[in-house]
């Protein structure tokens, strides 16, 4: 009997370990468990990613999902839309149906190995959007070659050059020694709604007794919302409050102009930059000494690349556009941005 129980437990834990090592299975399992409203549902992102880090019960607000308004589409779609983006835009899928006049839609995400090769179709309007959140600017635009690797012309590129092409050994290694296994195991073993009260208890003890929260999270000055620590900690270049010298701004501008020229030469007719501000830059820029990174880039006279200016629109009604417990904007913030993007797409569409 003992041996039988041991055998069952062994099979169960082996299965959990096996599943947690398999990223592609986890990618299918996670969205399902985040959506489902049952005891096996996962709470980590149900109330925002910052709640998922901190589990502070006083910041438990459900994420309200809306369907963004779709634009009236023209009779024929003639824009081939390419996009380099991060989680601000990536989370809203499918994006192509929300864009005006788009024939082909391809996107790649910063820091992911999903680089794309583009077959330039000169009969269409080739449109490139470089979307980036404020927290990623200083690291991404420090290296033009990395940006160039994200979208390449399929006529000039050897397929093996693509970073997404893993060798068999790398694939096996990633599966057998999955670097994400601890997060996956935590998700499979402890991320269930019935564990949430225990996690909240720990978070409450840490905050009320020891004055500490999860290191990824900072509480706003008026205690109404959570901010992502990386956007606050002035020692990190992702922060809105890390000092920025003029020579670093100059370097970013030089790199942006080089990127603009590179993709123009590749055949893109329209290239736009879109910087999404850190929530704290919009909601509470006086939290510390704001470095004004967005204004310093957008207002720089040497900047050649056109941009979508969302920062000042968001500033007009700061608390409306960001979740209180998530590091991203909400549907209203996204819609505001989308409307501005579609305005440009309509202009571009009609320009030919």
């Amino acid at each position: 009997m003992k041996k039988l129980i041991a055998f069952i437990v062994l099979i169960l834990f082996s299965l959990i370990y096996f599943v947690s090592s398999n990223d592609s299975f986890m990618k299918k399992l996670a969205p399902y468990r985040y959506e489902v409203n049952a005891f096996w549902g996962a709470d980590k992102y149900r109330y925002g990613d910052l709640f998922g880090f901190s589990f502070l019960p006083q910041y438990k607000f459900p994420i309200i999902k809306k369907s963004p308004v779709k634009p009236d589409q023209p009779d024929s779609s003639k824009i081939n839309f390419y996009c380099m983006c991060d989680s601000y835009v990536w989370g809203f899928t499918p994006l192509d149906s929300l864009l005006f006049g788009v024939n082909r839609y391809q996107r790649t995400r910063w820091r992911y190995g999903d680089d794309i090769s583009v077959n330039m179709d000169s009969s269409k309007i080739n449109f490139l959007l470089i979307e980036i959140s404020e927290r990623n600017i200083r690291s991404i635009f420090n290296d033009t070659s990395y940006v160039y690797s994200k979208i390449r012309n399929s006529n000039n590129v050897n397929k093996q050059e693509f970073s997404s092409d893993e060798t068999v050994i790398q694939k096996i290694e990633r599966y057998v020694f999955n670097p994400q296994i601890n997060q996956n195991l935590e998700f499979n073993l402890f991320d269930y709604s019935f564990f949430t009260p225990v996690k909240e208890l720990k978070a409450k003890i840490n905050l009320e007794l020891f004055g500490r929260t999860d290191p990824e999270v900072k509480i706003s000055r008026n205690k109404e919302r959570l901010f992502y620590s990386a956007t606050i900690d002035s020692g990190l270049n992702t922060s809105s409050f890390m000092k920025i010298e003029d020579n670093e701004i100059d370097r970013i501008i030089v790199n942006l102009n080089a990127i603009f020229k590179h993709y123009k030469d590749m055949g893109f007719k329209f290239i736009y930059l879109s910087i999404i501000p850190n929530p704290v830059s919009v909601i509470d820029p006086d939290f510390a000494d704001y470095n004004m990174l967005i204004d310093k880039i957008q207002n720089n006279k040497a900047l050649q690349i056109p941009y979508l200016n969302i920062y000042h629109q968001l500033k007009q009604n700061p608390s409306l556009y960001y979740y209180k417990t998530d590091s991203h904007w909400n549907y209203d913030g996204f819609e505001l941005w989308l409307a501005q993007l579609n305005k440009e797409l309509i202009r571009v569409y009609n320009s030919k």
Partner: protein
Amino acid sequence: MLFNSLQFIVYFIIVTLAYFILPHKYRWFLLLCASCYFYMAFVPIYILILGFTIVIDYFAGILLEEKKGKTRKIYLIASLCANIGVLAIFKYYNFFNQNLNDFLGLLDSSTPLPTLSILLPIGLSFHTFQAMSYTIEVYRGNQKAERSFGIYALYVMFYPQLVAGPIERPQNLLHQFYEKHYYDFERIKSGMMMIAFGMFKKVVIADRVSIVVDHAFGNINSQNSLTILVAIILYAIQIYCDFSGYSEIAVGTAKVMGFTLMDNFNAPYFSQSIAEFWKRWHISLSTWFKDYLYIPLGGNRVPVRQWFFNLFLVFLISGLWHGANWTFIIWGGLHGVYLIAGILKEKYFPSFMKKFASFPAATYIRMLVTFALVDFAWIFFRASDFNHALQIIKKLFVFSFDGVLNFGLNDNEMIFSFALIILLFFKEKFFLKIDTSNTKVFAIVFVAIVFSCYLFGVFGQKQFIYFQF
């Protein structure tokens, strides 16, 4: 794979259950595969380095047993050179190259040797020393050469003690791989309790006080003497809870499967002298140096000067064993000086020492002085380089108490941390053992410890300090 990770907990459950389900004759193979996986989870390719030393020492052991006369010595030296050579390349090459370069820089010259961009394989010093103890013991005739390659590989790679000890002797461990270990609930409960308590020491105490230590040492200029003093004291606690916590998890893990590993700690901060401290701290390493270096050098059965030289040399090498940095060498050297000073004190002031011993608080004063000396040496162990250590010492001895006190933890958490430390010392002082014979009591205490680890633990997958060695 870190002991304080979910991956390890699930891995441990799988391996242990499979171990008891499998027939005895296949168990060694399971443990060997599991140990390979455990090691490869850090950096897979470094298994080749481990494989190299295993192959060398396995054949060296057999040849040492078969050959006679001078040839044996040659095989022993060859095997030791191979082991030390691996250490020299992966751990010390860049250090010596850098120092040579600095020296030649004074003569307006530089070394043509390149700097190697290699990562130190995890636990290299530990398993190399364990492998070396095998060949030495075979050479001395205290251990028969192991004929099964798999069992010998398992001796070097046994996962509970692979990356940070205890550094076992072949006489203690090798035969255990042949013994049939039955499912013994009492032993399992005892092992599980050790694991839980080791985890508690690591995640609740060590990782909590490390916030104060990192805060103070990472930003020396904004600290005053008091915050530095508190950080230095807490570093002694951190490194003890971190390393002894690790050792308890290692010993407990092995115990659950029926293996007995040596204890690595015995309440070291209650030592009344530095000599006693080294009998209670990292016992498997200090006895290794005693057996394989200090005694072969002549130990204390040589003229006094030679004796002192031996002591000093052993501690310098022990410092270097910990890391390729001058700070570790100074740390070792300081302990050597402490030991020699302790011997001289007994020799030249016997009547004073006798009188002092009759003083009622003598025991506590001795403990306090020993702790202060050990703690002072820890400054060098913790500092990133020599200048950093000097900065810490300067800050400590300027006796400036200006500025706002900021320990990196609030007052409640500081009080909580010190309460935990007092409880821990109370337990160690009075040798309190958690009774596991009563299953109900075991279940309640075990669950309480695990739950406390979760509620009060500081998580962030902080690596064990001794993993870097």
